[in-house]
């Protein structure tokens, strides 16, 4: 990464309201030059509105947009050195592929576009299709045209609005890698809007998780996954199990919590909630961090691991792993994913088990929030944008 900051995107206090509906609450965000940045959230969370404010397609109700050192808040889209890959591509149906790609160059008064367009089409492997109309191409090809049409202008920032949403799963995977490759090659700042957490984690250096017009958490994919700071992030990125617990005492860098008669240990650094003794904390742990041991073998579990007892309610075999649902006194429907390395024949529905995990994999959240935030079907997902 360079020290050039001309491709930085800096949003300060930017917000958008439609009448009484606030699509984006005042937001500060800096996307450094050359990074691949993802805005992740469910539909209606304000991510697309944020992107459109960067593009100039939406006027912010307050705040400013800077590209590098320059304030572009008042500039119309056609004067911003920013290009967009639109959702469902928005290729001009009346122009052929060549003219679609050449559109931006021509509007900027560049006369001889032939070589550049041909080079660009070769880059996205569409040299043969130059004289076809967009509707004659497949979804994946259209997507590449949309990328080519934007990139040929050498924008400082490329904005991608759900660019892979219309593709099938396999093609989506392929295009994810392709886009990542192009980004590394051209070194342009990419701002990518998506509702697909896997897509965001695969492609982006930095992910901002948005919910109801606010950024819930910002960080690298690993950081967001391993150390979520809200139940929304914990649920939206993967699956999490939660135990309501009470702060009992502190020992060194760890907090000791009481939950359903047992004790759980949580590193203080991984707790985003206040930790006064007697206070409530939500203890979270990811399903794949947990090991299952039949209750008979409980003695074999090493010391120092968090443990909970329960009874297997359900199990489903999905190839690489087996997913168990465990009923326990502290949390019904505890999810556990076990790699299928040595399958224990005793782990069947109805079996009494001990769940145990390394305390370092535990995270602590403020108990004053919905356990279901960010899960499918919860309010945060259902909310539709007014756009």
């Amino acid at each position, binding site marked *: 990464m360079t020290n050039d900051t001309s491709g930085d995107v800096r949003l300060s206090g930017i917000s958008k309201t439609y009448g009484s509906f606030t699509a984006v609450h005042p937001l500060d965000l800096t996307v450094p030059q050359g990074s691949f940045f993802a805005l992740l959230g469910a539909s209606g969370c304000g991510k697309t509105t944020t992107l459109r404010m960067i593009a100039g397609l939406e006027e912010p109700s307050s705040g400013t947009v800077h590209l590098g050192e320059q304030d572009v808040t008042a500039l119309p*889209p056609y004067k911003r050195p920013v290009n967009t890959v639109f959702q*469902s591509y928005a290729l001009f*149906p009346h122009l052929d592929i060549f003219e679609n790609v050449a559109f931006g160059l021509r509007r900027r008064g560049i006369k001889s576009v032939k070589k550049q367009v041909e080079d660009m089409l070769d880059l996205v492997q569409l040299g043969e299709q130059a004289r076809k109309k967009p509707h004659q191409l497949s979804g994946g090809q259209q997507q590449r045209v949309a990328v080519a049409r934007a990139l040929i202008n050498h924008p400082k920032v490329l904005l991608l609005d759900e660019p892979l949403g219309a593709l099938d799963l396999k093609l989506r995977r392929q295009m994810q890698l392709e886009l990542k490759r192009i980004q590394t090659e051209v070194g342009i700042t990419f701002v990518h809007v998506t509702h697909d957490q896997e897509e965001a984690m695969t492609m982006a250096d930095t992910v901002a998780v948005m919910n109801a017009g606010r950024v819930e958490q910002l960080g690298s994919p690993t950081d967001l996954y391993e150390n979520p700071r809200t139940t929304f992030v914990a649920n939206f990125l993967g699956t999490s199990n939660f135990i309501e617990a009470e702060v009992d005492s502190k020992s060194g860098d760890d907090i000791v919590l009481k939950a359903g008669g047992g004790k759980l240990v949580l590193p203080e650094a991984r707790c985003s909630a206040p930790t006064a003794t007697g206070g409530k904390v939500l203890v979270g742990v990811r399903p794949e961090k947990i090991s299952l041991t039949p209750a008979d073998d409980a003695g074999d579990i090493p010391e120092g691991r968090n443990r909970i007892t329960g009874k297997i309610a359900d199990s489903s075999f999905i190839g690489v792993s087996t997913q168990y649902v465990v009923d326990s006194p502290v949390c019904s429907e505890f999810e556990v994913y076990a790699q299928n390395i040595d399958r224990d024949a005793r782990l069947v529905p109805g079996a009494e088990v001990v769940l145990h995990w390394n305390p370092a994999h535990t995270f602590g959240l403020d108990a004053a929030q919905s356990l279901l935030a960010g899960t499918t079907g919860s309010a945060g997902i259902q909310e539709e944008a007014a756009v």
Partner: protein
Amino acid sequence: MTFVNWLKRNLVVIAGLLTLAYLLLPNVVVTVFSFNKPKGRFNYEWQEFSTAAWQDPCGVSDLCGSLSVSLQIAFWATLGATLLGTMIAFALVRYRFRARGAVNSLIFLPMAMPEVVMAASLLTLFLNMGAQLGFWTILIAHIMFCLSFVVTAVKARVMSMDPRLEQAAQDLYAGPFQTFVRVTLPIAAPGIAAGAMLAFALSFDDFIITNFNAGSTVTFPMFVWGSAQRGTPVQINVIGTAMFVVAVLFVLASMAISNRRNKQKA
């Protein structure tokens, strides 16, 4: 049994074709009687075959003059109504503004009004203003009643247009004017063309409103109306048949051209 089943399955097709026959029967009669050699003034009974009228379509005084008046009025009315109607359609689809409901009603009402009412009230206006009835009053009236139909046709097309296309153009450095000329207009063109064709047909064929507001100017439909009282020359059948054939050929040709263009590109 199989015949009954076939009949059952194709009942709707048969009924539809019968309706189509009902729609086209008068045109067949008009065409056949354009080759008639009537006795007396009226061309309602078949006498004998003759191509006399086809050889001399303008043989009746004032007939071709009225045709030319109608074509001129239809041309200018189409131009005016298409221009004004397209502007309104864009405003309605693309912008939010006050009095939208009122504007929508004002567009809808002329279509929900019997022609005779519009004709009579417009005549009242012209009489009150002391306007000279003639070419201009007809043109004014035609633009007025074609306008709503153009708005409806263009609106449908613009509404089905993805607004992201224009945003994409803006994003690719096209200013508002460039966006309109390079993207919006070409994509809306079929809707505008449909509206224009509708306006032309409505204006060319209008009789009721024209009859009230024409003064001494005679359009083609008015000529036909007059001849229905005085005597119908075979030539009006010739003109009617020719217009029908020209219209069908025009549409077929434009379809063939657009087909070929698509194939070349493919």
